[in-house]
């Protein structure tokens, strides 16, 4: 307390500057997170979060001018270079991203600071009246080390565990961020730094809440996504041969499509790779003109990252009313005449429901087998990202249309136009 009073008398401005900078930083962090929940504001949200971070560091510089800058700058420079390399070259997509490893690094950092604080009982240079001492300090540091290690484990799990292959990955990384935030907050308690306590607490629950939201979109609990079942036997079953595959061409597909009353389109990763959304939308339009009811079924994990299909379909000007989430789509499939799967595999694999040994077991399923006929446009019979065999391809009602999604869809479009002069004129 003496230290604080001395500072007050010596430099009132300096005494107020640090709290004000920290308060502004907290406001930016909260607003940034809020904006990041809205599609149109998300980028501004990132900017605010970045400003919050810069302000937190600025506050520290004001508060701790006595620190030896050489080693600090060396550490900052090393982190900056590593962060730039990972941030600019790392893959953004689901399943291979560097985000989980970054989360693990954050956990490690919290553990190292806590261990370092454990090594000595010296008075903390900054904290003064705010820093914990004795038993409470030990407890906070212990909790910091435990949750930092939890963040490390979750980060590694998200990078390499069963969740890494599925749509649960964002949930596990959010959990890791939550643990890392808690660890930071505990470090903040032990060291007496208010901004670390506040932002740590904020992230601890924000991460947990996000993990729960992502997991519930998949019909699961966050901890179950992180540690629960996932493909143990997936690779062995992938080697199984297909016995009953029927292939057919665009012509036959077009004929069945134009005679249907209801068609469900199921786009996947392959459609994104082939950039086939315009060709697909074109077909949907021609079918609609003929009076066929057309809907798109969007799986939460379709594409590179969740929401990818919505962006592509929006780009192809597909009416939002035709786009259904997986559960609504399954209801439509019950009386659909045709399900047309475009470059998707794991998301239409019935093993998610009935094969506990499969890598995809427990994932949401777009149950195309409910439709009377299924057409699957795919480049080959190779397994998808999860490495699992797909029993759908062996079903009697399934027809494989092998080839590049865009070329096949364009060929189907040509057939539809040729066979339906009325629609072509319209």
């Amino acid at each position, binding site marked *: 307390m003496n230290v604080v009073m001395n500072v007050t008398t010596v430099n009132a401005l300096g005494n107020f500057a640090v709290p004000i900078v920290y308060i502004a930083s907290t406001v930016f962090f909260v607003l940034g997170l809020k904006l990041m929940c809205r599609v149109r504001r998300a980028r501004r949200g990132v900017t605010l979060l970045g400003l919050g971070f810069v302000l937190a560091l600025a506050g520290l510089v004001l508060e701790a001018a006595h620190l030896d800058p050489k080693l600090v700058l060396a550490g900052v420079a090393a982190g900056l270079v590593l962060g730039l390399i990972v941030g600019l070259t790392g893959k953004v997509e689901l399943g291979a991203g560097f985000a989980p490893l970054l989360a693990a690094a*954050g956990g490690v950092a919290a553990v190292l600071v806590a261990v*370092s604080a454990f090594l000595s009982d010296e008075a903390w240079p900054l904290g003064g009246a705010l820093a914990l001492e004795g038993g409470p300090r030990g407890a906070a540091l212990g909790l910091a080390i435990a949750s930092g290690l939890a963040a490390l484990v979750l980060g590694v799990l998200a990078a390499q565990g069963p969740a890494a292959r599925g749509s649960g990955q964002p949930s596990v990384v959010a959990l890791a961020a939550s643990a890392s935030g808690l660890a930071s907050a505990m470090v903040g308690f032990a060291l007496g730094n208010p901004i670390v306590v506040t932002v740590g607490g904020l992230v601890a629950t*924000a991460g947990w809440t996000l993990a729960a*939201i992502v997991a519930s979109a998949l019909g699961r609990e966050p901890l179950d996504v992180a540690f629960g079942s996932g493909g143990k036997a997936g690779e062995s079953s992938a080697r199984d041969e297909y016995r009953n595959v029927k292939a057919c061409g665009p012509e036959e597909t077009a004929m069945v499509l134009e005679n249907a009353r209801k068609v469900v389109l199921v786009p996947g990763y392959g459609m994104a790779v082939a950039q086939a959304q315009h060709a697909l939308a074109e077909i949907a339009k021609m079918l609609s003109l003929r009076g066929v009811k057309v809907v798109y079924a969007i799986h939460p994990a379709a594409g590179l990252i969740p929401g990818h299909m*919505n962006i592509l379909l929006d780009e192809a000007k597909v009416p939002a009313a035709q786009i259904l989430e997986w559960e609504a789509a399954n209801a439509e499939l019950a009386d659909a005449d045709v399900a047309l799967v475009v470059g998707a595999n794991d998301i239409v694999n019935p093993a998610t429901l009935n094969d506990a040994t499969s890598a995809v077991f427990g994932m949401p399923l777009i149950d195309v087998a409910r439709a009377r006929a299924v057409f699957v446009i795919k480049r080959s019979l190779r397994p998808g990202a999860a490495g699992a065999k797909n029993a759908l391809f062996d079903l009697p009602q399934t027809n494989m249309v092998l080839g590049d999604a865009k070329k096949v869809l364009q060929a189907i479009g040509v057939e539809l136009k040729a066979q339906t002069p009325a629609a072509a004129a319209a």
Partner: protein
Amino acid sequence: MDTGLILWTVMMFVLAAFVGHHVIHGVPTLLHTPLMSATNAISAISVVGAIVVAGSEYQTVRTILGVTAVAAAMCNVVGGFLITERMLKMFKGGGPGSKGGGR
């Protein structure tokens, strides 16, 4: 150590935790991954503590731990923000083929 002041800090933590829970609300599927990435980036706020440990004149072991922690946390922050930004750019560009895309 002043117990009264410390209790204020604990209260800040509790309130921040409630704000963190309530501010994440109505997140569209599209933003799950970018928000995950941003949360991940700011979870490394412990970099502030790490800088203090690295810059104080402690014995060698603690300084090494501190500098390593600064590097690890800074990497998490910078990498996390850049990846988040690239994800959001990808949405704007509309697909993996565009120049902002991640492939």
